[in-house]
């Protein structure tokens, strides 16, 4: 695949939807609905992915080689045959780590400029 030869840095910045889907898969393989719920919970429901957005993004991530469909199924008691499970590839993990580093740099800059306190004061309820 053409895109798999690209470096993780060349794929940055990621859109919030892509970043959070990759982030949801760092803990292990998940099916679509589990990814959607994980993204909603981890972002305090600020990112609510619809089915079209979720599977459109999954399609692009599969094509880019950042995720893959898992052959392994969970234990029979937890498994649902109708679902497909997705997991991160090596490239996907490197990309999400690179993006996390980038966010970290941004967070450092925010702290350095003392913006976090100002923003917290400006948005007292719920935060951003």
């Amino acid at each position, binding site marked *: 695949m053409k895109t798999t030869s690209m470096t993780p840095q060349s794929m940055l910045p990621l859109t919030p939807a892509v970043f959070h889907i990759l982030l949801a898969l760092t803990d292990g393989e998940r099916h679509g609905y589990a990814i959607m719920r994980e993204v909603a919970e981890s972002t305090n429901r600020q990112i609510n992915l*619809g089915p079209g*957005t979720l599977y*459109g993004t999954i399609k692009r991530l599969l094509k880019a080689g950042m995720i893959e469909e898992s052959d392994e199924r969970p234990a029979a008691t937890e498994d649902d045959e109708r679902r497909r499970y997705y997991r991160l590839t090596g490239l996907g993990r490197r990309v999400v780590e690179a993006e996390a580093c980038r966010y970290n740099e941004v967070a450092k800059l925010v702290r350095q400029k003392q913006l976090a306190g100002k923003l917290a004061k400006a948005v007292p309820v719920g935060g951003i």
Partner: protein
Amino acid sequence: MMSKNFDGRAVTVSVKIYEWLLLAYPPSFRQRFGSEMKQLFLDQCRDAWCQGAGWALAGLWLRVLLDWTKTILWENIEQLTHRPALVRVFGLVLAGAFLCSVLLANFSPHSYTSVTLIHVRELQGADPYFVAQQSKIIKSYSVLTNVIINQRLHVILAEQNGVKRWTIDQAYDYLSKRISIKQPTRMKGVLRITVNNLDPTFAARIANGIVSSYLNLKQQNDRLGKLPESETVILDPARAEWKSRSRSMSAVLPAWAFGAALLMWGVFFRLLPKLAHY
């Protein structure tokens, strides 16, 4: 029991509708992800129903419809961009058509506009529709055919259009489409008669001829007492206006249409796919 039945029915109907909505996605996308999307939507419906019954389900539908609208557009555009040769050929055809229409519009003859202003006033009575009626009389068949016969417009206009001679009715049809009569706002009783023609001198001659023909008809009717007595003053006779030239819409419109289509092609097949990573 009732609630459980209704729960099952609302969710089943929702999923059925969503299954139909999935048909809007490109076939390859539907084949690969359709059943997973349906399963996911079913899970969402069940969760929504458990959380807040009908209202929660309505809220879910609103979010899903917004998502559906956005993603069917992206997915279908992306599907088309997978056939670059077809998109490129389509773009080239549009660019060629745009270029041809611009050239054609540029070489199409100019149309000149002549304007004359007249003031009409009813001497007795105060009919609120008097001015509007005069406007219809000026554009009437009897007034215009008089002008056509007097100025031999059935020959001149026909020659301008590459034909040797027209019938009076053909000339009337042509002329009536190139005349407009309007009442300028804040100028009570004033009628603005506008004539378009390829020749500015003819445009002015026709405009003045229409006023003369209208005045003649009015004089005849005044003598016979058919119409209420009125007064007409020519405020500004038409002159050959070389400056007020324009191209006809039929020449310019294709250029605009192909230009807009080309712009949309660029937006849909070149710009949007680059931004389509939601």
